């Protein structure tokens, strides 16, 4: 009795420049995300700013995750299981706008990215499917 599914879950990997956030992978980022959500309290933001390394070490993140947090490498953090809704709390703590945070992954400068958005954003042409190239 093979099942008819709405889509193959593997197709989620077919979108260029995109990592779909899935339950299984989220486990790899549980402690990273716990760290991110701790930044929703002002006293924790202060503690983090006062001693980044010491604060980061309170959380059971992998060394790779810790290094990527320290480097504000959001692309890397997403690769390591993170999701942007958690990660943006690091950017907010730094006083970055959401646009600046997002642009840091886009392969262009913050200014170029901002201009692209003003010009109507990034076209989906050619970015729908790796397989189809459309």
């Amino acid at each position: 009795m093979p099942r008819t599914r709405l889509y193959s879950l593997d197709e989620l990997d077919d979108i260029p420049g995109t990592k779909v956030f899935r339950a299984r992978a989220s486990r790899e980022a549980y402690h990273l995300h716990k760290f991110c959500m701790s930044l929703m309290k002002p006293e924790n933001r202060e503690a983090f700013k006062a001693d980044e390394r010491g604060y980061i070490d309170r959380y059971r993140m992998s060394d790779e995750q810790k290094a990527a947090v320290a480097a504000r490498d959001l692309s890397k953090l997403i690769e390591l299981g993170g999701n942007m809704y958690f990660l943006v709390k690091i950017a907010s703590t730094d006083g970055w706008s959401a646009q600046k945070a997002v642009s840091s992954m886009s392969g262009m400068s913050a200014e170029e990215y901002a201009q692209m958005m003003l010009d109507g954003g990034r076209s989906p042409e050619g970015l729908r499917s790796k397989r189809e190239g459309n």
Partner: protein
Amino acid sequence: MARITAGIATSHVPAIGAAIDHGKQRDLYWAPVFQGYEFVKEWVKSNTPDVVILIYNDHASALMLDIVPTFAMGFAEEFLPADEGWGRRPVPTVYNHLDLAAHVAEQLVIDEFDITLINEMDVDHGLTVPLSLVFGQVEEWPCKVIPIIVNVTQFPTPSGERCWKLGEAIRNAVKTFPEDLNVQVWGTGGMSHQLQGTRAGLINEEFDRRFIDLLAHEPEELIPITRLEYLREAGTEGIELIMWLIMRAALGYGVEEKKRFYRVPASNTAVGHVVYETKS
């Protein structure tokens, strides 16, 4: 009897909330966005609901770390605006209508929706930015709000079909509530945007405009859009549009479109907004 009199959909970009809170509504960048909401701010004065059932997604504010529900309902007496990393928004506390909320929850479970009740939580920009856009800067919100939260972020997410059915079930539940209440259903989020990867900044105006074109009178064209298609066409966060479907389904067949608005960009996002009145 309670009845659903109108529906509103709108994007819920956090930067819009910040622009309101910091008095930037007339800035060159923001003025054209806020212009799109002039109509609804006027309209709502003579169409103030008793209760808004507000469908949105939580952005790792109250949920997503320890708990990831597919559909959740806020079930506390009140909800504070969340501190999303830059302090709580200076907006009023949100008060629930617990009697209607309990009734809707019971009816939804009877209709085989496996919802999760959340007895304590803060509400983030997904809920408060739409309230600000519609009601402006007020001392207190002029109505009660029942928050319904949809997982649109961590796959598996619910399908468009499932969301549509949820909207229909909400409609049926409200209709069977004995008290005389004017209820609106709002769906927030969207339109196309992607907040990650080298594809960040994706906007699909064609997709968005078609979505708005069909939503009022031909929503059956939109219901079958798959999760994957939302991601491909409207970006990883464009899938928030499934919450517009819940709103639309809750209104039933006959609606009158009072307003539509579309503008690119606000921060990373295409902004869309519609106001529908029901004819039933």
